[in-house]
């Protein structure tokens, strides 16, 4: 990660920034941040992941609403793990005015709703170019 060692103010330099995927295309925003407590007792919390999606954003407004959105999210995502859509810091390759990540946008957890809508709603409209059966990210 090229920003290692550089001091970042989470609020100013990270939160609400756009996230650009492998092709440089806007995929999401940094809606929230996930920190983990380190092993050492007085170590600083470590930023482990960027959280995206409405559930993540809602957490900054209202806990209740966030919980409901997280539940709703599970309707679309097979439940592996509770909580909002997550991008692990290991997938972040550059932090600048925007966050650049290695995966392609349609592969992200946060893209699940979008893909679901594409396959189940828009695909039924003529001329959509969406293959309703395909699970692959289109080109």
């Amino acid at each position, binding site marked *: 990660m090229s920003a290692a060692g550089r001091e970042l103010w989470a609020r100013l330099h990270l*939160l*609400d*920034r*756009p*996230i650009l995927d492998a092709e440089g*295309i*806007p*995929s*999401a*925003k940094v809606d929230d941040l996930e920190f983990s407590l380190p092993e050492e007792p007085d170590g600083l919390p470590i930023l482990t992941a960027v959280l*995206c999606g*409405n559930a993540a*954003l809602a957490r*900054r*407004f209202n806990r209740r609403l966030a919980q409901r959105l997280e539940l709703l999210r599970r309707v679309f995502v097979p439940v592996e793990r509770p909580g909002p859509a997550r991008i692990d810091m290991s997938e972040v390759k550059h932090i600048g*005015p925007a966050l650049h990540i290695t995966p392609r*946008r349609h592969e992200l957890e946060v893209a699940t*709703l*979008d*893909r679901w*809508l*594409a396959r189940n*709603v*828009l695909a039924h*409209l003529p*001329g*959509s*170019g*969406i293959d309703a059966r395909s699970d692959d990210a*289109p080109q």
Partner: protein
Amino acid sequence: MKRVFEIALGILTAIGGFVDIGELVAGSQVGSRFGMNLAWATLLSLFGIVVFAEIAGRVAAVSQRPVFDLVRERLGPRFGLANLLASLVITLATVAAEIGGVALTLELATSINYLLWVPVVAFLVWVVVWKLNFEVMENAFGLSGLALVVTGIAVWQLRPDWGNVAHQVLHPAKPGTESVASYFYYAIALFGAGLMPYEVFFFSSGAIEQHWAKRDLPVLRANVFIGFPLGAAVTLSLMLGASLVLGPRQIDVGHLYQAALPTSVALGKWALIVVLLGFFACTFGAALETTLACGYSIAQYFGWQWGKFVAPKDDARFHLSLILTLVAAAAVLLSRADPVKLTEFVIVLSAAALPLTYFPVLVVANDPEYMGVKTNTPVSNALGVAFLVLLLVVSVAAVPLMIITKAGG
């Protein structure tokens, strides 16, 4: 030669882009009731949109991001959401008003009831955005720019007392038959018609897309500095035509057909057909623009992909939001809300919301993190702050005046 053509098309497009259902309605209403004594309000809105567009374009060129994409990260998600919701409500109502305008024009052309046209128009708008067929939009605006020139010719034909016209424009006075409240209410309405939130969204987002398509900056500038003033000239022609033909007969403009009457009276059947074509093209283009503006502003807040080159398979949420926008707009119209009254309502609300949409532009344009060394100069800041103060005054006065005058009554 190709360059000249490109610039000409750009200018015509800007003319058509400036004029939408707001100008058609407000321009005619004001002309008939106040003569040219409110021309200054249109000129002020012209000044505003040129300043706005210039700043938004500069921000887009330097930061490579449209202004409203930057609002959330610069001013926080709460302010960003408030900003988004306020502009979305207004822009959605504007979509309805523009689709209403298209439907009313089609009614005038075919005598088929406008309510039957509403779903057809909404569908056509959807087809254009679904299939990414944006030459349609460019052509619509270009055509409307050309067609609406007929309003200027009509005014010429009516042989006004130009001295008198100049006097009213330069030394405006409130007509004796109107109240002070009405005078300023209509000033605000005209001003709001020229400065709707979607115009800034769209202009700054469009500036990014044109850069991606490697279009030249001079063309953009020609649009702003030549096209917009010509668009204001069309509005003023409608106003003058109404003041010469409708005013003396005490005709109050409550329907779209009255906006076309001066042209018909002055020049005849073919001019009527051309001006209706102009009405159709400018409202259809505006319907496309406002629909996209709704989709863009939602997508830019949440970080989705947006733009004229984004296909349904690229971003489903963006396209779904476009569909929902059109469905909501059609529903508003099908509930039999009067499209002309809706237009009057929307332009005043627009004026009331201007500080909210303009303030972030000013903040972002001053932020060195986005602008590098190209932040606002002290002069442009002084102008910008003065303008913001004006917008605040307009905003505070808008709703009370609407209530006092019963929406212009």
